[in-house]
Each structure stands twice: as C-alpha cells, then as structure tokens.
C-alpha cells in the first residue's frame, strides 16, 4: 500500500482574487513505503506546493491526498501527520533559533511530551545520524557553524522526530560541492539503512537521477512525466523540456547518439558516459 497517495490533486492559490494561480493541476501519483521519489521541475512549477500537501500544511483545492492512510483534508489528521512526515524546507538552517545545537535539535521531541532522557537519547542519535559528534557540537551556538553544518543540524532536528517519511525541498541548494555530497550521502543512507521513505525535490536533475528510483516531473503545475527514472530519462520529449537541463555528460551522449555515433543512451552516471566515449575512441583508433 502506498504511504503517500495523491489523487487528482489541484491547488489554487488566492482563489477569487486577481492573483489567483493554479499551482497544481490534476496531479496523481503515489509513493510506496521505503521508496525514493524525486520531484523535478523549474522554479514555479509547483514542486514546493506539492510537497506541502504531504504533511497537511496545505490541503487540496480539489482531489485527495492520503498519507499513512489518513486523508489530509481532515484537520485532526493534519495534526498527527506532522509527527509522521518530516518536512525539511529550503534553506532549513534559517529556521534554527535556539541558543545551542542541542536545544534546537531537541525542540521537536520536547514538544512531543517525551521524558527528558528520551529527548536526550533521540537528540544524540539524530546528531550522530547526520554525521555530527554530539559531544563536540551539542553545546555550540548554531550561528558559529558553517552553512553546511547548520543544515545538518536542521535535518537532525527533523530526524529527532523519527518520521516515517522524510520530505526534502532542495536540500543541497546553496551548498558547495563537499557540502552537497555530504547531504546526498546522508539522504541515501537514511533510505538504505533506516528504510525511511524519501521524497526529494530538486532542480538538479543530476542529483535526482543518481538517487531516486522513480521521478516525477512538474511543469507549470502539471505532472508531465512520472515513472521509473531510467525510462523517463529515455523519453525524447523529456530531454527537450524547457524546465529540464540535463547534466552535460548526458547531453553529450544524446548529441553523439543524435549524430549517429554508436553510444548507449541508456546510461545515468558520468563514469558510464566516460566508458561509452572511451569505447567510441577505441573503435576510431583501430
């Protein structure tokens, strides 16, 4: 049974005003327990609007969203969902507000009414999960950490709630290369080892195709491609979508294939692309 089930979801902002905007138009998709769904699309395509339906922050204008078996349009359900679905917003480090890392990460569990040893246990565990040494960082003020570290603290705060589903909105935006790699590794680990269901939004197709088993592509509020990552990648019309900028190495492979060179366009990684080109060069040498 899918853990997130979206049926014919439409969401309109500011209905009845001059600024009325249909941000989502008839979206149907589902996410299974333990799955990794990637959502891609340009700025303004509706990605963030969509994921805010997953923990009941927004409710559908039309259609139905069921998460963990509960209809999100029911208010009582929404109050339960924020415990089950952890939402990591864009630039989550901007939400850090406590004086120390420990206080910030433990804010969620404290508000669940847990005992203080349990709160501490969860906090320490969450910090370890994101690769931070609790003894070193717990007493520090979040503002003296770098952007990448602060983001990890913010994610730890969500993990301390022990969510069943983790939804991340552009988790790597604004980070440098090692920072990005670190966050992506962490997300991968959470899915593989903790079996948390992951929904990740990114405008970096590169990140999504390397992690997600399935992808959903949004454009102007509509779901224009949805399915197994490799299959979606192979679709010609997907490759030329205005909101989609494929990694250069994939564009290279597709351009070469388009010019009749014998390369396999069904690849995903840079290493695979290198191998394809090496094969091509080897044939030339013969």
């Amino acid at each position, binding site marked *: 049974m899918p853990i997130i089930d979206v049926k014919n979801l439409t969401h309109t902002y500011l209905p009845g005003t001059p600024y009325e905007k249909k941000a989502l138009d008839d979206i149907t998709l589902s996410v299974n327990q333990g799955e990794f769904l990637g959502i891609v699309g*340009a700025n303004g395509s509706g990605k963030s609007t969509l994921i805010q339906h997953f923990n009941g922050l927004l409710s559908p204008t039309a259609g139905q969203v069921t998460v963990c078996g509960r209809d999100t349009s029911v208010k009582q359900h929404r109050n339960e969902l924020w415990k089950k679905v952890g939402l990591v917003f864009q630039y989550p480090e901007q939400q850090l507000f406590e004086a120390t890392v420990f206080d910030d990460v433990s804010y969620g569990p404290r508000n669940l009414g847990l005992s203080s040893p349990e709160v501490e246990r969860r906090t320490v565990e969450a910090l370890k999960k994101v690769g931070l040494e609790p003894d070193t960082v717990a007493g520090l003020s979040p503002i003296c950490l770098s952007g990448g570290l602060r983001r990890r603290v913010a994610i730890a705060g969500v993990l301390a709630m022990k969510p069943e589903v983790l939804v991340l909105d552009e988790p790597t*935006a*604004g980070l440098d*290369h090692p920072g990005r790699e670190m966050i992506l590794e962490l997300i991968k680990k959470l899915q593989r080892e903790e079996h948390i269901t992951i929904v990740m939004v990114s405008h970096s197709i590169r990140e999504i195709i390397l992690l997600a088993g399935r992808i959903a592509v949004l454009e102007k509020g509509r779901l224009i491609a949805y399915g197994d990552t490799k299959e979606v990648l192979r679709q010609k019309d997907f490759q030329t979508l*205005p909101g989609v*900028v494929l990694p*250069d190495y994939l*564009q290279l492979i597709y351009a070469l294939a388009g010019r009749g060179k014998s390369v396999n366009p069904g690849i995903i990684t840079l290493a695979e692309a290198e191998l394809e080109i*090496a094969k091509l060069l080897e044939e030339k040498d013969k």
Partner: protein
Amino acid sequence: MVKNIIELVDVTKEYSTGQSGKKCALKNINLAVRQGEYVGLIGMNGSGKSTLARLINGLIQPTAGKVYVNGLDTADRSSLTEIRRLVGMVFQNPDNQIISSIVEEDVAFGPENLRLPPAEVKERIDWALRAVGLAELRHHAPYLLSGGQKQKVTIASALAMRPACLVLDEPTSMLDPRGRQELIIKLKELNEKHGITIILISHNMEDVVHAERLIVLDEGAVRLEGAPWEVFTSEENLIGTGLKPPEIVQLANGLRKRGYAVDKKIISMQQMVEYICRL
C-alpha cells in the same frame, strides 16, 4: 595601458569569533583586476570569497593592507560614495536586495539617490532593463517574478548606477538550471557589449567557464590562477580545495588517464561533441 579597476595589496582580514579569538578569513592577498576583465573567483564555503567581495566596495575594511578601486582607497571614507557607484554588488539571494514593489522603481532607487534629473533617471532605467532583458516586466511586482528574473532585477538596479564593475556573490545558487544558464549568458554579454568588468563568485566551476581568468581561493589564500582550461585540468592542484571541474572536463581528464590524447582546451559540451565528431 589598461587600468586596474580593482587592486588589493597585501590584504588580510580577520574576524573576531567571540571570546575564543580570531579567525583569519583572508591572508595576504595581492590581486589586480583590469578594467573590462571577466574574472571568476571560486572556492568552497568558508574560503574567503564573500569577504573578498565585501572588501571590494568598502562594505568591510581590511585588517591589514589596502584595497583600491579605480585608484581610490576604500579606507578613505570620503571616497566610499564614488567607490560604491563604481562597484555594483549582486548578492546570493535577490530577495535580500530588492526594495521596491515595482520593478522599475527598484531600478530607479540608485539613480534617484544620485539626484539625477528625471529624464536621465528614466534613460538609465530603460537602458538597464534592456541590458538584462526585462524591459517588458518593468511594471511588474518583483515578488511575482521567478528567482532568475528577480536576480536580473538586482543586476539592472546595479547597472543603473553605471558601474565600471559588477561583483556578483554566488548569484546563481538560488536559481534553477535554466535561470542559471540565462544569467551566465547575460553576464558574458554585459562584459563583451558594454565593457563592464565582471567579478563572478561561485563555488560551481560550471558557472565560470566564460571567464577570462579564474582565481581559486582556498582557506583565505589564492591557491591557483589561470585561464579556465588551465585551472580545470590541473587536477592535482584542485585536490583539497573541494572544487570539481565541470563534468565535461572531468570526462576529458578521465579519457586522458585512459591514454587518449583529448585536447586540454575542451571545456564545454559543444566543443566535446565537435571534437569527437571530427576524429
């Protein structure tokens, strides 16, 4: 002789970090940027890039050393107005520097504060909005624009001051790939068509392929300097900086390791396609 628009002489910048002491953000930087040059400044988070940017228009002062803009010392308070007119700044998040609720009013803010006559203000707005390609959106509300468009508004607002130099501090990091591409092309155009000196700061090497010269900052010092292809292909020097060359160069570097003599000057996808098809 072409003048140096920006000159840093033995610049060191330290920040105090509370009771624990000082953090050195920049160590003994010597740097000159020619008028009309396009420089890419790259480095990881914490390498000192933003500190350098803020020193260039006198937002902060060096702990030691001198910063000159067009020969004016940024430590001289009476020169700061002129220095800030000469050097336009564009920051990471456009929302932090857009102040008006209408695009053209935002662009007008700078020139109006120079107390220029209305006709001149209007002319500058027209020019700046055309230069970034936003002429049609001049009456729009900035908050209804996309991230890429908002970033173009901030560039137009900087351009309306008729700066000699634009310093952009990670202007692409909040944009989607399409917005990023457009912005990068626009910057190249501003540099080529209008002769504006560009200092583009990024941790993304793909952003700076069009620069004439790259400067790699690492832990507050200049680690590497050269044409983009030279920097991208000197892999051993990039180790430890946390920087990775563009993927096409990574691919070419990989092929060279496999023993294929791929031209080192190939840094873009189009160049690579042409190269392979010519073989």
